[in-house]
């Protein structure tokens, strides 16, 4: 009944996976202005692609000045944590179809750290807190000639916190950290937890004492933002509470 050309066009429209999505990105360039502004980009994208693919399309085809970090593009390196639709996520692990592409997708830098340009922040204070909890194996005595053995149960005890990729999604989602950068933040506590509960490590006491400090675990207010934000599914808030419990039960 209809003309064949019409049918063909319609069929093509149905088979094309591409949809038009608006990326609303918080841009900041200190070489142009001291003010950060929202900028909209319309892009054609397959909803099964990721936010990172959209950022690539913009950077490669539309505006090469868009600045963001990414390295592995597969959720391993922890470079591309950003605030997408108000929630901290990895751009490389967030599918367009999962975050309602009908509305503009807002993308901004993670909060609580100095924005250097667009989505790039100064991670130094974050890594300073990480270094301050001594994130390395500490033992006494001579080095063994073979590997340090550990039972499966002992390994299981801290399995969850070994998964951290130091993306800072948790720390930069924490309202205590937003207002007071002296707080160690969830990521540092997670990485302390990884060694405190490691049966091979012998500096647990020392790390507990560091986190017993006024800017340590007692500042945690159990808002659970960190657990919600973690792209590795680590139960961050639980790990913090386990450190609190260890602090309370170790002497009494």
């Amino acid at each position, binding site marked *: 009944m209809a003309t064949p050309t019409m049918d063909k066009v319609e069929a093509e429209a149905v088979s094309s996976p591409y949809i038009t999505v608006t990326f609303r990105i918080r841009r900041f360039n*200190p070489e142009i202005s001291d003010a950060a502004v929202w900028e909209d980009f319309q892009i054609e994208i397959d909803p099964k692609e990721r936010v990172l693919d959209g950022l690539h399309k913009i950077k490669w085809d539309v505006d090469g000045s868009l600045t963001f970090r990414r390295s592995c593009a597969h959720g391993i390196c922890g470079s591309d944590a950003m605030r997408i639709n108000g929630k901290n996520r990895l751009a490389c692990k967030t599918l367009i179809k999962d975050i309602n592409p009908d509305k503009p997708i807002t993308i901004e830098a993670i909060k609580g750290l100095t924005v250097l340009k667009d989505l790039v922040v100064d991670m130094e204070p974050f890594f300073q807190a990480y270094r301050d909890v001594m994130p390395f194996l500490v033992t006494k005595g001579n080095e063994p000639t073979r590997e340090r053995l550990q039972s499966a149960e002992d390994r299981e005890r801290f399995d969850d916190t070994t998964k951290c990729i130091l993306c800072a999604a948790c720390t930069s989602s924490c*309202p205590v950290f937003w207002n007071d950068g*002296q707080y160690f933040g969830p990521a540092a506590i997670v990485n302390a937890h990884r060694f405190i509960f490691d049966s091979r490590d012998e500096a647990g006491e020392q790390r507990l004492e560091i986190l017993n400090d006024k800017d340590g675990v007692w500042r945690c207010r159990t808002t659970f933002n960190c657990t919600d934000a973690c792209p590795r599914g680590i139960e961050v808030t639980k790990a913090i509470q386990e450190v609190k419990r260890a602090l309370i039960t170790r002497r009494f």
Partner: protein
Amino acid sequence: MSAETPSAIGAVEGAAYGPDNPAPYIEPPRKRTGRTPRSTRGNFEMAAWLFMRLSGVVLVVLVIGHLLIQLVLDGGVSKIGFAFVAGRWANPFWQVWDLLMLWLAMLHGANGLRTVINDYAERPNTRLWLKGLLYTATVFTILLGTLVIFTFDPNIR
């Protein structure tokens, strides 16, 4: 967007930011550096955290009991008067009850506000003044309340 490009804003305000003269960064409050002091106040934070929970449990009983007696039972709020207070404080049990409630609620509330100040006040001077005010008000209220409970005179006129 095109109507207010960043460069247009810069031109209007006359602040010529450029590669040689970049805009200042906005630093986060009290950010951690290599010079951040290590361990400082021993177990005080842990004691404060524990106290909040323990005093909270006791306060549930004290406060709910207090509200029931004052506002619900036996005629409700309309019965409260000088004679009612005098009658209750004649009994050492209620004296101890009110004293405990005063001390726990004040210390609990003050420690809670101390946390709030730690969370929200950024500049060292603001923190100092707010905490000074808080501790002064707390000490004053606790001392005055304690004094009244122990020296209350039902025959005053």
